[in-house]
């Protein structure tokens, strides 16, 4: 593949970033797991670990190929299936200075965490067997094609010039919309009353690991240890902080005091929102984007959800869906070629076209994800049944699905 040569520094960074993104899935497990009732903690942890196992294998076998092999229209086809041709040599179409296999494994961790994000919507009431099948099908028929459209060689949105640095469309919009769909179909939890998080420190631990891992997620997407990676890193941290502070103050204004759950939720919303923009915007823009992330996701969670009365248990839609969509649009506004010459300018820098592309991309993604997720859900519901029985739900997923309990009550 030409006169490309592997750069050890870039490779070191991408490998490390891959490890960081891998850690985000367990991080998410604790972020979500701390928020559910004590009797459902294992249900959440299990789904996250299962997503890691299943998608890792799917990706090696054919997922990566579907997403990144040269286009066959809808998705990438099977040219790279079984990692054929994915070896030590770089593929300059994706990353010219690192082994192609490093790009593959970095992308794998994105494919892993995306279905895991959806867990927040149907937490505390989905059958584990159905979750397994759902993850496999959803990854194959939703994640892989959309990743191809946006990032794959020949993908139509990529060709159109859409900007999505680290997955605002591919990861957060898809997961967020899928969360909305599943929350709507699966219905509310039996005990509707808000239940306090059973272990908020676990949620904080999860948020910390997510923040930590997100440096790999975003700055790793530079696929090199260069100035762009650094800029992305800074912008990521800035947006998270800004959104965390914003949510803190929103809580104070609307509810009379600041909260830990609000602050960490804000930070995660900021991270989700900056994701597509992170490689294209300045720190100043990141402060603004973080602010809007805090405001809009707060409002979605506090007002939209009660208003429409769907039970997105852990706000996967409110945080990742809203955040992702917001971020994709923000990219069309704040992107600057001063930060990333391979990007484009946004509205603020006089380019009106970009935001239209962004809106188109996010719109198509929403529609496709909505429909495809709906079909997959219904299919599984026919085959296995998606929701656990009432008794299992009351008993908790830990006991009913896995015959285990999270904590002993006595020594």
């Amino acid at each position, binding site marked *: 593949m030409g006169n490309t040569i592997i750069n050890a520094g870039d490779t070191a960074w991408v490998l490390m970033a891959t490890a960081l993104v891998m850690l985000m899935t367990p991080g998410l497990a604790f972020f979500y797991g701390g928020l559910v009732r004590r009797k459902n903690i294992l249900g959440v942890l299990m789904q996250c670990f299962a997503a890691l196992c299943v998608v890792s294998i799917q990706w090696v076998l054919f997922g990566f190929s579907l997403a990144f092999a040269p286009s066959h229209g809808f998705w990438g086809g099977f040219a790279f299936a079984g990692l054929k041709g994915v070896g030590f040599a770089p593929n300059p179409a994706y990353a010219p200075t690192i082994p192609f296999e490093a790009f593959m494994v970095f992308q794998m961790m994105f494919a892993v965490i995306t279905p895991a994000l959806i867990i927040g919507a149907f937490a505390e009431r989905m059958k584990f067997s159905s979750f397994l099948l759902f993850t496999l099908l959803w990854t194959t028929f939703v994640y892989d094609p959309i990743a191809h459209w946006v990032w794959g060689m020949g993908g139509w949105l990529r060709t159109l010039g859409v900007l999505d640095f680290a997955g605002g469309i591919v990861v957060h919009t898809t997961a967020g919309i899928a969360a909305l769909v599943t929350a709507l179909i699966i219905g509310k939890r039996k005990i509707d*009353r808000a239940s306090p998080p059973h272990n908020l420190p676990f949620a904080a631990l999860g948020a910390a690991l997510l923040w930590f891992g997100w440096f790999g997620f975003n700055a790793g997407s530079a696929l090199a240890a260069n100035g762009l990676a650094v800029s992305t890193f800074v912008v990521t941290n800035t947006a998270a902080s800004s959104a965390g502070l914003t949510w803190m103050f929103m809580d104070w204004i609307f509810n009379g005091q600041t909260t830990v759950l609000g602050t960490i939720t804000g930070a995660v919303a900021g991270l989700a929102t900056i994701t597509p923009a992170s490689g294209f915007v300045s720190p100043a823009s990141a402060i603004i984007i973080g602010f809007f992330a805090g405001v809009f996701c707060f409002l979605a969670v506090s007002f939209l959800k009660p208003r429409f009365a769907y039970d997105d248990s852990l706000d996967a839609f409110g945080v990742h869906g809203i955040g992702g969509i917001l971020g994709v649009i923000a990219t069309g506004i704040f992107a600057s070629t001063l930060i990333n010459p391979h990007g484009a300018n946004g509205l603020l820098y006089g380019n009106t076209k970009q935001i239209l592309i962004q809106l188109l991309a996010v719109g198509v993604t929403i529609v496709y994800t909505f429909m495809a997720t709906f079909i997959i859900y219904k299919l599984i519901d026919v085959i296995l049944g998606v929701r656990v029985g009432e008794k299992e739900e*009351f008993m908790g997923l830990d*006991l009913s699905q896995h015959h*285990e309990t999270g904590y002993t*009550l006595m020594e």
Partner: protein
Amino acid sequence: MKLIVAIIQPYRLEHVKEELYKMNVNLLTVSEVLGHGRQKGITEIYRGIKESGNLLRKIRIDIAVNEEFVETTIKAIIKGAKTGETGDGKIFVLDLKDCIRIRTEERGPVAIG
């Protein structure tokens, strides 16, 4: 005065509280216990080793009431807790010799409510 002690299924607590409130029984004390009864719990399995898991999580409710409230309270608990399946639990009624409200140092029936 009586002290009513109910052992119920954890997930019926909300219903029981609701029924009690309807009857104006608002004061109660709750704790988490493990119960061994006729109910067969789920066998837990850890690395292939089966744990008959004979102690199941239950909720214990303690309510001190004056005589005229005893039957109302028992009925309310039954209404909230009963599903008809084993494991629904038991209610124990004990004689309460005295009751003191610490804040006011009142004693007897007046201190209960």
